[in-house]
């Protein structure tokens, strides 16, 4: 890809690949990304060595999502199974939302297998919180608050999970634009019209597919492309960075589609370099 050849004037950071830990730690704690071979610590993945007190581990960059309890994630329903919904999160296994989850049951008098599709159907985009790990390694998701649930009137973008920072909050309501932005820790990002995170328990009115006004649509597309550009360049995504990129495209009067061209990529890179060191 042409863009990977861009060079940024950044300060040197130390990187190590498959290097054995030199210091003899009193009780070396083996973190992930390492394994012990003949009393020496060897790296098993390609990444950045991190040392925290006595813990040494290798943090990979590009990899599937590594869930932590409490993460807010955005996923797509791939199957409506007998008592649960199967959700794709870009994790090593599929995840599940249980029908018998307290939060699902609370508001409806009875959710049964027949009307599961009224809550979440196949291909729906949902926002949920990581609950716990099942014993077979799969993930259980919870729809705890009003903010969780089906997502409407917008678009879903997928980026590498390592580019999304785990900082709260992850739901952003950009009032000036009337846009909701959800940065899922799993790298799935939702940009859409405000107020269309539907509580799964309220009555499902499918007829309500009103038109998205052009201006809102333009904003959604512009933010979407900003996220795409940041992902192409490998820059961490926070609300701040995304909105700055969005504003940059507006002030320079760049056509929405041209945002994906070389010139804008260079501009964003220069802007980012300025932002970090300026």
């Amino acid at each position, binding site marked *: 890809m042409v863009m990977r050849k861009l060079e940024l004037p950044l300060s040197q950071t130390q990187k190590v690949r498959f290097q054995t830990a030199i210091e003899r730690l009193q009780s070396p704690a083996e973190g992930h990304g390492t394994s012990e071979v003949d009393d020496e610590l060897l790296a098993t993945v390609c990444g950045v060595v991190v040392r925290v007190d006595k813990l040494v581990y290798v943090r990979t960059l590009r990899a599937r999502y590594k869930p932590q309890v409490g993460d807010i994630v955005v996923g*797509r329903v791939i199957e409506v199974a007998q008592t649960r919904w199967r959700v794709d999160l870009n994790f090593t296994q599929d995840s599940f939302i249980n029908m018998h989850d307290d939060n699902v049951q609370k508001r409806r008098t009875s959710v049964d297998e027949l009307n599961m599709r009224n809550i979440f*159907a196949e*291909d729906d985009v949902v926002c949920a919180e990581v609950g716990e790990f099942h014993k077979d390694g799969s993930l259980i998701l919870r729809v705890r608050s009003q903010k969780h649930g089906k997502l409407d009137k*917008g678009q879903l973008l997928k980026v590498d999970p390592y580019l999304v920072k785990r900082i709260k909050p992850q739901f952003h309501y950009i009032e000036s634009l009337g846009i909701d932005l959800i940065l899922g820790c799993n790298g799935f990002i939702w940009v859409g019209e405000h107020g269309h995170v539907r509580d799964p328990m309220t009555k499902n009115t499918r007829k309500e597919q009103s038109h998205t006004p052009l201006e809102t649509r333009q904003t959604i597309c512009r933010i979407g492309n900003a996220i795409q550009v940041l992902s192409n360049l490998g820059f961490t995504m926070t609300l701040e960075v995304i909105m700055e990129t969005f504003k940059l495209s507006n002030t320079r009067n760049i056509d*929405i589609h041209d945002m994906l061209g070389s010139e804008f990529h260079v501009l964003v890179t220069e802007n980012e370099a300025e932002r970090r060191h300026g």
Partner: protein
Amino acid sequence: MVGLSISEQHFVKGGIAQDLRTDGRKRLTYRPIYVETGVIPQANGSARVRIGGTDVIASVKAEIGRPSSLQPDKGKVAVFIDCSPTAEPTFGGRGGEELSSELALALQRCLLGGKSGAGAGINLSLLVIKEGKVCWDLYIDGLVISSDGNLLDALGAAIKAALANTAIPKVNVSTEVADNEQPEIDISDEEYQQFDTSGVPVIVTLTKVGTHYIADATAEEESQMSSAVSISVNRSGHICGLTKRGGSGLDPSVILDMISVAKHVSETLMNKLDSEISAAEACEDES
């Protein structure tokens, strides 16, 4: 392959209706096209074309053969397409076969004209060496490495570029030969002839979503289509071939409208491709 929720589908269709697709393009805008030629050195001609996330390679190999008895004054061309599982895990094993055959057939239809060879985008008479005895067999192979919609247009562009890159060796044929004998042929190692691609068409696929048509659909948009019409148009604005895909029926007036829209779009695409191809060839010459 790409599942979209009802509301996402509505969003995509709404965007197309408002002439603002999810990536900001207008309905008839193509994504940026990148062309590289000479990527397969052992072929007579080759090219790699990238349109957005779609990445394809086409190669042209020329072998000596006999013309068919039905058309002794024409050479032969065969098109084969392969969808690599690197593009989609579902293409693994025999998964990609159906799509590959569909694409190959559509390309043959667009480039090679009817059974008599008349009106072919590729002029088959240029491939004959000695009428009735010796001709060139061109094998055009396409490989899809990465797929994000609009495979047919990308393959058409790659084949056009590969043909532009094709150099066919000059052949000397012994003239005096009896009717039932094969003449001796001497394939030159030094002298080559560039293949004439002025007549080779470009393929424009228009995908109908709702009541509008879009050019260069992404995989997401293709999943929402009701039908698609692929039209191959050459430099003179003539239509060389036409294929319709998709279950939905189309009103004849709609098809005629799509054809005229395609002709209009093909001009821009043709110019863009030609300039990309010349740039790529120049690049290759330098290296």
